[in-house]
């Protein structure tokens, strides 16, 4: 798989991140960021494994109907929710790189949001929600997203790759927690 990533995903992802960074249009760039976040997360093996496990347990505990179909749909929508949240995270993160605002305001704000929503979310979803933050960003996502961030920060004038290039993963591990808790409140 690693060799496949190196031959198939890395070159095309990195070249595109760089080509995108040189493009003038911010809308195209933000759309690309969303698509990249959504697409990589839907395919994430660790997330597939964990949502399946989450559905199994939710079924056994009676949180959802204990049928293969209900569990399949629960796992599927959980995955879609997480993928949407990572897409939004990259949009927000790329926007931050474009404007050059300090990351800590976003992250600390996100922490406060997580804490507030935790108070309203059903208890059973909190563990899954907190875990989904870390689960989303792995083998496929991390190299592509890091390449995008550092590529952007190196191309845009006045941005420091160390200060502005990193941080996209941090966004992508924070928003799933918020989205999944909201998923738990609505489901």
């Amino acid at each position: 798989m690693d060799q496949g990533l190196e031959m198939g995903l890395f070159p095309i992802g990195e070249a595109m991140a760089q080509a995108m960074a040189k493009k003038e249009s911010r809308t195209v760039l933000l759309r690309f960021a969303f698509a990249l976040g959504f697409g990589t997360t839907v395919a994430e093996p660790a997330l597939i494994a964990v949502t399946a496990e989450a559905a199994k347990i939710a079924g056994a505990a009676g949180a959802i109907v204990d049928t293969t179909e209900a569990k399949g749909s629960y796992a599927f929508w959980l995955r879609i929710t997480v993928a949407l949240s990572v897409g939004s995270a990259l949009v927000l993160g790329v926007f931050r790189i474009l404007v050059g605002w300090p990351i800590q305001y976003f992250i600390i704000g996100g922490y406060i949001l997580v804490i507030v929503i935790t108070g309203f979310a059903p208890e059973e979803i909190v563990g899954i929600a907190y875990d989904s933050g870390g689960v989303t960003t792995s083998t496929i996502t991390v190299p592509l997203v890091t390449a995008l961030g550092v590529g952007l920060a190196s191309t845009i004038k006045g941005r420091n790759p160390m200060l502005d290039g990193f941080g996209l993963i941090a966004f992508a591990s924070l928003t799933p927690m918020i989205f999944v808790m909201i998923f738990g409140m609505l489901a």
Partner: protein
Amino acid sequence: MEFLINIAEIILTTIFDVLPIVVILFVFQALVIRKKPARLKTIMIGFVYVLVGLSLFLIGLDEALFPLGKLMAQQLTDPGFLGIEKGEDVHWGDYLWVYAFAAAIGFSATIAEPSLIAVSIKAQEVSGGAMKAFELRIAVAIGVAIGVAIGTFRIVTGTPLPYYIMAGYIVVIIQTFLASKMIIPLAYDSGGVTTSTVTVPVVAALGLGLASTIPGRSPLIDGFGLIAFASVFPIVSVLGYDMASTWLRRRDKPDSKEEAQWTSK
């Protein structure tokens, strides 16, 4: 025969799972960048590797990593192994081996994590060598080890997850004001980077296994959360690493500027 059908099913599912990213990359390539990618043939072969590798990985996860994590958790919490009577109240001190195992597995899985290796190499490159890739990996691995150990302690005691995570957040926020500005984005990233291919299945299985064997714990409420610990504590340890190295540098050279190591590039 059943095993073969299982494999075929997983490969089919994988094709549907990888399809979105392939479509996205190629649509943007064709419509926005409008250039034929160099070495198209190699890239196509690479995608086949991704498909095969991902399918094999998912099978391995089902057949080996998940059961292994659960088995270890069961054995380590077995009343016979712990030397306690059945029906007795759980005492956290009886589970010391669980914490030790959790820390060890957290540390070693993180050191082996391919995405962390990729990011730390990138960080070393971008910082002009000021940030050592290996030191970053050690700092992150220590954070994961401590995080997973505390996470298993939480499962054993059955205390609410949000309190621990909030406490972690408060520590991160305080450290954010004290650490060097340059390390902050990287430190925040290291939380999400750590929990990847190897770590997630093993750690998730450990948590679920523990929650189902320890009396009075519900897998749904107590079983999850270990990965959350593993994503918060590396932030603390990386920021801590930066604060410690700044302090050491100041002690050696009292008049050196705070951000000197970053501007030297």
